[in-house]
């Protein structure tokens, strides 16, 4: 959808109201009292767009700006590698947001934010003004010398890259070597890389016959972790690496990637602080930070992520009024995940609605009840999974979100029941976000 600056501004409130009218929703048809612009159509952006429309009863217009036609979920995407799922199963269109909730979805790419002027620059529509702006643009990878994604796909922003990695694994020798890296924290989906190591070890271990004893030569899965140890579900993954996939997975901590050789698909090497590792397939997940639009606009300061107040998710940069950052791009200590992005979006939605209505987000009652939670399941084998969960609560003394003691837990073992629950969990998360 291409829009000039003038017709973009003119059409947004009217379009949102019209869609709400035709949807049969409970949204009010009256002229919106405020207009929220959301950048990014992933878990954070879609959840806040939906919940602002729903909770404001249509009083607040929402425009969601996203360069892609749909969103491919990273959540569950390791199951594309072992063909339990297809990309289509994890692809979400924006139709429900538009038709059920009256969100105005515009396909465009935001390039710059000017805080003092309350304007954003879009690739197609040019400079646009906003009342409130929510930035939910996810992550951007650091550049690594020699890394060619064509031959070494990251599969950490799901989509074509995930399919490419699946195809490469499919073609590699049954007893070949798969080399993967874990980025320095904080990174998207703390258990994800270790989960991937298990999924790939399972694929190759079955294919080679090593896991059922019909083959004597093990495939190799080398996990190069930039961190000093396993970052999530430590008990589960330590057990899986050492016992279930002992002889297949080799875990090497403190291995920071320095460069990669990947221009020749027949000569793939990862050079790290712990040595060089060649593989039939290499999967380098680079260290990442917030998207460059935040850095270019001055929202990240010295940090790689946007500093925000978790009471509202407003940026702490006072040059930017009514600008909020949620999801992976924000810099609180909460884990970066789709589930958590959804959780933060609801706190932010509540705060924006309060602000529009002239109510404070800092009442004692609200401050005592700001919580977010994280829950996720990790496939360990073709049909067994583990889980991890935690609850975070606002600490007024420190002004930050803190893990609630006792709430952090992980599964005692991987099981078929967990594997089945994983689909119920993800289907509910997808529905709460996109539908």
């Amino acid at each position, binding site marked *: 959808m291409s829009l000039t600056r003038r017709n973009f501004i003119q059409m947004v409130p009217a379009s949102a109201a019209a869609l709400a009218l035709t949807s049969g929703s409970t949204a009010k048809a009256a002229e919106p009292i405020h207009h929220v612009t959301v950048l990014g159509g992933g878990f954070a952006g879609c959840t806040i767009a939906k*919940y602002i429309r*729903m*909770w404001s009863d249509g009083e607040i217009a929402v425009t969601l700006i996203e360069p892609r036609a749909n969103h491919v979920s990273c959540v569950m995407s390791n199951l594309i590698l072992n063909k339990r799922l297809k990309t289509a199963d994890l692809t979400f269109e924006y139709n429900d947001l538009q038709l059920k909730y009256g969100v105005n979805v515009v396909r465009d790419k935001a390039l710059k934010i000017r805080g003092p002027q309350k304007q954003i620059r879009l690739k197609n529509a040019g400079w646009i003004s906003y009342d409130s702006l929510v930035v939910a643009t996810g992550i951007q990878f650091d550049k690594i010398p020699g890394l060619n994604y064509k031959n070494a796909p990251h599969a950490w922003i799901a989509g074509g890259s995930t399919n490419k990695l699946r195809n490469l694994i499919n073609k590699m020798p049954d007893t070949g070597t798969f080399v993967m890296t874990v980025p320095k924290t904080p990174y998207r989906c703390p258990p994800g890389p270790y989960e991937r190591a298990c999924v790939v070890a399972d694929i190759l271990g079955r294919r080679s016959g090593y896991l059922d004893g019909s083959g004597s030569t093990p495939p190799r899965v080398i996990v190069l972790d930039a961190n000093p140890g396993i970052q999530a579900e430590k008990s589960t993954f330590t057990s899986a690496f050492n016992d279930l996939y002992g002889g297949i997975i080799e875990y090497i901590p403190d291995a920071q990637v320095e460069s990669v050789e990947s221009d020749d698909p027949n000569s793939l090497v990862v050079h790290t602080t712990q040595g060089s590792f060649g593989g039939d397939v290499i999967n380098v997940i680079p260290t990442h930070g917030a998207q460059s639009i935040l850095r270019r606009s001055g929202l990240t300061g010295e940090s790689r992520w946007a500093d925000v107040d978790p009471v509202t998710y407003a940026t702490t940069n006072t040059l930017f009024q009514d600008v909020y950052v949620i999801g992976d791009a924000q810099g609180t200590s909460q884990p970066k995940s789709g*589930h958590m992005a*959804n*959780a933060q979006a*609801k*706190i932010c939605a*509540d705060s924006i*609605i*309060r602000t529009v209505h002239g109510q404070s987000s800092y*009442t*004692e*009652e*609200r401050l005592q*009840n*700001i*919580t*977010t*939670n994280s*829950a996720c399941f990790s496939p360990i084998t073709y049909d067994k999974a583990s*889980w991890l*969960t*935690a*609850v*975070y*609560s606002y600490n007024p003394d420190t002004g930050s979100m803190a893990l*609630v*003691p*006792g*709430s*952090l*837990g992980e*599964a*005692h073992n991987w099981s078929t029941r967990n594997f*089945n*629950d994983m*689909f*119920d*969990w993800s*289907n*509910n*998360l997808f*529905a*709460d976000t996109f*539908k």
Partner: protein
Amino acid sequence: MSSFSTGLSSKLAIISAIVILPLNSAMAEDPTVNRMIASQCAQCHGTNGYARGSFPDLGGDEAKDQADHLLDMKGEDRAEDMMDHQALGYTDDQIRRIAQYYSTLPESGDD
């Protein structure tokens, strides 16, 4: 001076009583705060508590039953299930608020 101090203390006491009283009363609860806390259940239990699959629906349950259920999970000697850990993440008052919120919603929705 002494008299002035006493008088001020008395006035402050009265003001405090006026300010604090509504906070101690369930009547004064901000319903949007309850909604905000309760929405954190929706990632697994569906928007407005209308769950897909085998996870339980939350909408329309009796508030006391649901609160008691969560408090039982919180009180487990050893947290085993994911929900035991989740329940440990909330104060008793937050659990009561969550249960109260979902009790006001219909039993089923179209989500």
